[in-house]
């Protein structure tokens, strides 16, 4: 696979603590890369290093195949978690200003902005001061500013926070559309449901180290729990030692639902054949772990148990 951004053995120490300890990630070209981790794990520090806001103490970053250079930031669009623009400036004026700082000419910035403002139906905000807009509207403006200079690499830090479900959906579509156009996206979030929907690859950082990384589907299958849910219309299942164990059984409206745990040695097809011999199958489904469960399992293993609600930021 063709990697757009590679960070190798990044170490960043502050006076009291080590923010990143030998962190390596590889972001594939044209994919959405999820950067996950609990609060304070070091995600923001890594993002700042990728943005060249701070420099690592050691380690190297390869950008599009070459060692990272100062000019590469022109090829990055960054939506920080801490949103903020000039409150007293007019929306259009400051969007043009920020675009020019990213290297666009005045005319080019205006024409691209008009395109995006029309697309989002916010053309009438152009001459309004930012402070007159609602928080969600400001976020839309900030999203446009992030992607306007068509950078090869886009970094979104918690892009959906503060958006209502309708606008979050619009934003999700735009992010996927940008990926399909060939942009590489780094996506940092606590919202595991959105990770499953959007991300192709992930890296999970905990306590300044990468503890889990890879393709989302690979990660999920690596964390298979061996649980299967099946529904059937006739027949009965009993635990078969050495093959499977019935964990739960319920019946409703003539349908029986079973939860089984498969023995590790048994293949899926062997299990299917075994149960099909005993019951009339309606459905047979392996229970893939959700990213939420994997996150809790990996992060929670060496941290005090996290209340459910706190995870769903």
């Amino acid at each position, binding site marked *: 696979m063709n990697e757009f951004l590679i960070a190798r053995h990044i170490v960043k120490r502050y006076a009291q603590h080590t923010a990143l300890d030998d962190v390596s990630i590889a972001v594939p070209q044209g994919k959405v890369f999820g950067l996950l981790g609990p609060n304070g794990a070091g995600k923001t520090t890594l993002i700042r290093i990728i943005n060249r806001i701070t420099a690592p103490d050691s380690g190297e970053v390869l950008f599009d195949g070459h060692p990272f250079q100062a000019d590469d930031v022109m090829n990055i669009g960054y939506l*920080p978690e801490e949103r903020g623009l000039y409150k007293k400036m007019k929306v259009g004026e400051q969007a043009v200003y920020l675009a020019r*700082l990213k290297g666009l000419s005045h005319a080019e910035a205006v024409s691209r902005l008009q395109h995006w403002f029309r697309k989002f139906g916010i053309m009438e905000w152009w001459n309004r001061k930012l402070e007159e807009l609602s928080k969600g509207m400001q976020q839309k403006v900030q999203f446009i500013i992030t992607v306007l200079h068509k950078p090869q690499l886009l970094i979104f830090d918690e892009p959906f926070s503060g958006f209502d479900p309708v606008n979050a959906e619009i934003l999700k579509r735009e992010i996927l559309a940008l990926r399909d156009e060939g942009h590489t996206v780094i996506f940092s979030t606590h919202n595991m449901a959105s990770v499953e929907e959007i991300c192709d690859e992930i890296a999970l950082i905990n306590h300044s180290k990468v503890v889990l990384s890879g393709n989302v589907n690979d990660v999920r299958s690596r964390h298979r729990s061996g649980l299967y849910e099946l529904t059937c219309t006739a027949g009965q299942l009993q635990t078969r030692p050495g093959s499977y164990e019935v964990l739960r059984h319920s019946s409703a409206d003539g349908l029986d639902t079973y939860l089984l745990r498969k023995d590790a040695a048994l293949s899926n097809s062997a299990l299917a054949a075994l149960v099909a011999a005993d019951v009339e199958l309606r459905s047979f489904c392996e229970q893939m772990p959700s990213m939420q469960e994997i996150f809790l399992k990996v992060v929670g293993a060496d941290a005090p148990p996290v209340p459910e609600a706190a995870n769903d930021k």
Partner: protein
Amino acid sequence: MNKTLIVIQREYTTRVKKKSFILLTILTPFLLAALIVVPLWLATIKSDDQQTVMLVDQTGRYAGLFKDDASYRYVPSPADSASFYSEDSDVEAVILIRGDLTRNPRNVVICSRREVPADLLSYATNVLNEQVRRDKLAATGINGLDRIIEDVQSEFSIPTVKRTAEGESSTSSTTVAMVAGFLFTFVIYFFVMTYGAMVMQGVMEEKTNRIMELMVSSIKPFQLMMGKIVGIALVGFTQIVIWGVLLAILLSVCGGMLGIETAASPEAAMMMSGGMPPAAPPSELDEAAAAILNLPYWEMAIMFVIYFIGGYLLYASFFAAVGASVNEQEDSSQFVTPVVLIMLFGLYAAMYSIENTDGPLAFWSSLFPLTSPIVMMVRIPFGVPLWQELLSIVLLFGSALLVTWVGAKIYRVGILMYGKKPTLKEMLKWLRYK
């Protein structure tokens, strides 16, 4: 286009387009002009209304001395009367002279139903004083004593001339040099304080708006900081130029309107011509004009620009670093107050240095970089040795660059630090961050 230029452009245009800036820039010269012109104008209109003053002179020796003028008409009256003090009377005051003033000065009293006007009091005092003096001199019986005393008291002023070994000489005026030097000093002080504080406000605005992270991912913090400092300096230049031009126009227009009256009163003419001390008698005006022309203009102008840039850079970088380090306006005072005190000290040092422009206070405070931009300007019109000027400039720019460098480092870390107020120790630690 260079990114620093883009930042300068934004810092400049957003500030110059602000309504408050436009109002302040246009109104201030009017206010200043009004401050100068209105008192003069009031002084001229007062004379339209001639007041009546009753003279009750029981000796009959003094009444003839009072001459009517534009303000007061003196009417002799044989006796004091209660009607002089009634509400509908047009009598302003009554001068009561009850006996020979050479014997007892308390024999005169001025009564009025209101406060006695100060100019009437001083006129009456002068007239009576003069007569009493004459009477007393006459009483000695010495012939021509009057003229002898007048001769003894004749005043003269010593012209001051600046000379060099080559024999060049030029008329100089200590007063003019003092005024010119202090004017420049005050402009630098005002500019550094006002616009330095504006730099700090701007940085804090960016920090509290949380736009910093976005900014530093597109531009180096140093470029951003310098763009802000330069942009705001240009705002200041714009304001000062507009003020200077407007003030000059306003004063010359007002001066033209009041021309006849001001020509009649030398004090007013002097006030118009730039605040020269009213003590200078009119005969010295020509000398003062010559002295103004003989000031080292080029040196002053060049040094003004140099000290202006150095001082502003020094303080603005400091203010930028403070603005970047603190999270709230209130927190900034612990860093700003000591610096304001140093600047104030500089201003006072400048005032005292005028008295003795080569004294130790003037010498040391014009070398110390934090006060040199303020103090050196008052010394230059009096002539400063070249080595002192050069040393002072080198020290100023050396420390300005140092503060800019340190300030930029603190700025770079500080703008992304939120939460608690940093201590000086932590800020020093930031210097080592990569």
